[in-house]
């Protein structure tokens, strides 16, 4: 792939991720815990991690969190989601690179979701100076099993399509 194509692809994926972030902010969850989310943009992040590698998915992730900050305009939730997003991507990268013989994308995605929750709750308890916020964590772990499962499951399809498209472009 040449540079311009590469750039266009990253921009498209970032746009998708931002769209999903805004979309999941609209959907109400049945469980009220701070920072509990469906993790829809993680489908894009996980797919780009597998297809394009760590650096590019990190770029998508950082640009996404900043764009979401501009669109939704909540600086406090930006801090939480920024640390959550970075640590989740780091964990997913490590698990995918070194343990992919053992874990499928579903496992990778669950690891990511758990890292995201842990980082968010840790950030929240640091900012509010209250360690009791960690008592939200067990419930959030259980939720992240479900969300992580479906995100990992869906990522398989996205990766399949992405590989097809890239393959096509390279030959045309």
């Amino acid at each position, binding site marked *: 792939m040449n540079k311009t194509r590469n750039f266009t692809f990253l921009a498209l994926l970032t746009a998708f991720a931002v769209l999903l972030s805004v979309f999941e902010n609209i959907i109400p969850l049945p469980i009220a815990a701070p920072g509990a989310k469906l993790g829809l943009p993680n489908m894009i992040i996980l797919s780009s991690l597998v297809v394009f590698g760590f650096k590019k998915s990190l770029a998508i992730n950082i640009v996404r969190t900043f764009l979401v900050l501009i669109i939704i305009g909540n600086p406090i939730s930006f801090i939480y989601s920024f640390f959550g997003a970075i640590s989740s991507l780091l964990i997913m990268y490590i698990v995918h690179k070194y343990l992919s013989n053992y874990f499928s994308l579903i496992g990778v995605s669950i690891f990511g979701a758990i890292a995201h929750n842990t980082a968010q709750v840790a950030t929240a308890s640091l900012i509010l100076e209250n360690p*009791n916020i960690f008592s939200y964590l067990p419930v959030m772990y259980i939720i992240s099993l479900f969300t992580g499962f479906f995100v990992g499951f869906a990522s398989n399809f996205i990766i399949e399509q992405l590989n097809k498209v890239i393959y096509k472009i390279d030959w045309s």
Partner: protein
Amino acid sequence: MTKYDKILIVFVVFISLFAMYIVKERASNYNKKYVEITVDGEEHSKYVLDNNIDKEIEVITDKGYNIIQIQNGQVLVEESDCNNQLCVRKGVIEEPGEIIVCLPHKVVVQITGSSEDLDSISY
């Protein structure tokens, strides 16, 4: 889905349930319960929590307000002008260790317990 995925899922479920059990177990050792409200890490107010207290507290921060209600030994955030309303949707809490967080306003409502009497309490 591989074998290790399933092991991971079972492991996480086990850990979470165990942690929930610990939190609950620690709560049952107390005979006195208090409602503590903190704003941005600093104590705002503290109340005794028992079945006879009926109170409405308005917490005003520089970001907005939360109206907290204490009734029948239960605490809830009745109203807030925060953007995500998670504190309102969390519902009632009543056991030590339980906590309501309003992240946008940095307001924390938590129930603490102790097994001894305190000298000064604001009613």
